[in-house]
């Protein structure tokens, strides 16, 4: 029991005690962090450093790597005719589909956040597309949906629009990937649902007493309180979408066709590393991507203080 008192005291006393407290906090934090530290160094950091090294080598996977200096990076910006198209289509995908999927996910989550008969089934149904993930069935179905005589064009024809064979044209093919992403919003939706449940209900009760309508409640209470989760979803989706692989692999059978218009950056990197036996170059591509994502993530964190709710403030 003596510890109780001491903890309570040191909170308020001056620097010598504070350093002691700090040291003990460090100790507690680092002991609890041991599993993560082991995993981080053993399973994440070492392979990362290894791949950084490999990015300066010619590495076929089949024979030991050979040091080539910055050749891989030089070739990327000067000579590689598939690098820019793959980066462009990936950036398009990220900046269009991430906001779209986030809005859809939040809207559906708010809609599903109610007590109602059969709500569990409804929730499961909305999560369904994400359960199917990158399965072959989705691939075949998506291709048929967006074919010349597919369901999408049928619906468009009701409005007098003559739709193309979406996956045949380099202008329209990337959109099918965006739609696929927007349709598989299950993960952010579930996270939003969980976040909505986290909001103390007394806040809503107070708002109701004040006579606020549902839209007002959403924008004054719900949205501000879940901004940490909005932030999380946007940042995480950006990070994973830049590395999106399965959708493109599934839609184009791993070819990136037509005209490399569905050649996601990671698909290209994979083709180079495993298909063309240039893992050194693939590693260089990966590190350039990391630099891009890290820059954008840092930017997101820098802006967070202006719009993300922080209970510590």
């Amino acid at each position, binding site marked *: 029991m003596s510890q109780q008192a001491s903890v309570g005291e040191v909170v308020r006393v001056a620097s010598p005690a504070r350093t002691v407290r700090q040291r003990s906090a460090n100790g507690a934090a680092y002991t609890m962090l041991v599993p*993560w530290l082991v995993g981080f160094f053993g399973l994440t950091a070492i392979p990362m450093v290894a791949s950084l090294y490999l990015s300066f080598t010619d590495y076929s996977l089949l024979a030991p790597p050979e040091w080539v200096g910055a050749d891989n990076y030089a070739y990327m910006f000067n000579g590689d005719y598939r690098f820019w198209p793959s980066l462009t289509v990936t950036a398009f995908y990220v900046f269009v589909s991430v906001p779209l999927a986030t809005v859809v996910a939040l809207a*559906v989550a708010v809609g599903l956040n109610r007590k109602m008969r059969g709500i569990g089934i409804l929730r499961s149904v909305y999560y369904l597309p994400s359960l*199917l993930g990158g399965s072959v069935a989705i691939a075949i179905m998506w291709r048929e949906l967006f074919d010349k005589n597919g369901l999408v064009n049928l619906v468009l024809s009701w409005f007098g629009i003559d739709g193309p064979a979406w996956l045949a044209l380099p202008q329209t093919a990337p959109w099918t990937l965006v739609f696929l992403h927007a349709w598989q919003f299950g993960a952010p939706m579930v996270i939003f*649902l969980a*976040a909505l449940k*986290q909001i103390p209900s007394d806040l809503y009760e107070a708002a109701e007493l004040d006579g606020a309508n549902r839209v007002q409640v959403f924008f004054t209470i719900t949205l501000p309180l879940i901004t940490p989760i909005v932030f999380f979803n946007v940042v995480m989706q950006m*990070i994973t979408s830049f590395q999106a692989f399965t959708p493109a692999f599934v839609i184009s059978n791993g070819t990136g066709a037509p005209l490399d218009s569905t050649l996601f950056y990671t698909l290209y990197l994979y083709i180079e590393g495993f298909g063309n036996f240039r*893992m050194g170059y693939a590693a260089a591509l990966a590190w350039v991507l990391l630099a891009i994502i890290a820059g954008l993530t840092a930017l997101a964190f820098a802006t967070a203080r202006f719009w993300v709710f922080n*209970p510590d403030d």
Partner: protein
Amino acid sequence: MPAVLVLGALLMVYPLLWMFSSSLKPEDEIFRNLSLIPQALTFQNYPKGWTFFNVPFSLYFINSFVIAAIAIVGNLLSCTITAYVFARLRFRWRNLWFSLMLLGLMLPHHVTIIPQYIMFNNAHLVNTILPLVLPKFLAVDSFFVFLMVQFIRSIPRELDEAATMDGAGPFRVFVDIILPLCTPALVTVSIFTFVWTWNDFFSQLLYLTSGDKLTVPLALRMLNSSTGEATSTWGILFAMSCLSIIPLLAIFFFFQRRLVEGIATTGLKG
């Protein structure tokens, strides 16, 4: 509002209906008749698929289930405690560690998987499930750590400060205060871990090689016909894909209840 939701649900359920209907069509009808109603109904794809390989398909289900279950335990234990430390404790180099953790998420795994494979191979762990489940106990899924951090930070700090005043150490605060308050987040972690592990193809492909160790996604890929160099098995693929969805739906349906019944008010323990 509910009407819109039900209408949207049709859009969501369409792929499953399509897949199910395709699994009931004879092989030469699947790509000829794209409508949801089979012209010639057959149920043969299900028994044929179940016994298509030299081991029954149920073995793949068991293998997948074991891996997913262990992965959930691992993530629940390791990611939550790590997230708590990052979200609540002040310690030296916290921001540096956190940045490094996020950085680990940004490198495509295709280039780190080779060094990882070499490490597990040197440890003689290839062709066991350990390379797939051991990392989960070491909080390597930074996605979940970050997710939990965001959830924990939204819990009012007064609660754990009060507990701290009462003499609880950081670990006690974590177990008694934080954990019960983030049930929805824990449910989320469980659902995602199950689904993503169940559907994970690449690492299972690399680490599980022997025929009796294969998992559902590995078996499904073997049913995929892409080159046409053999009599195709699309019907069987769709049939087995339908079956493989059932555990996912069941798990989701079971866990999502907890999302509804999650803690409705804070301050229960304060």
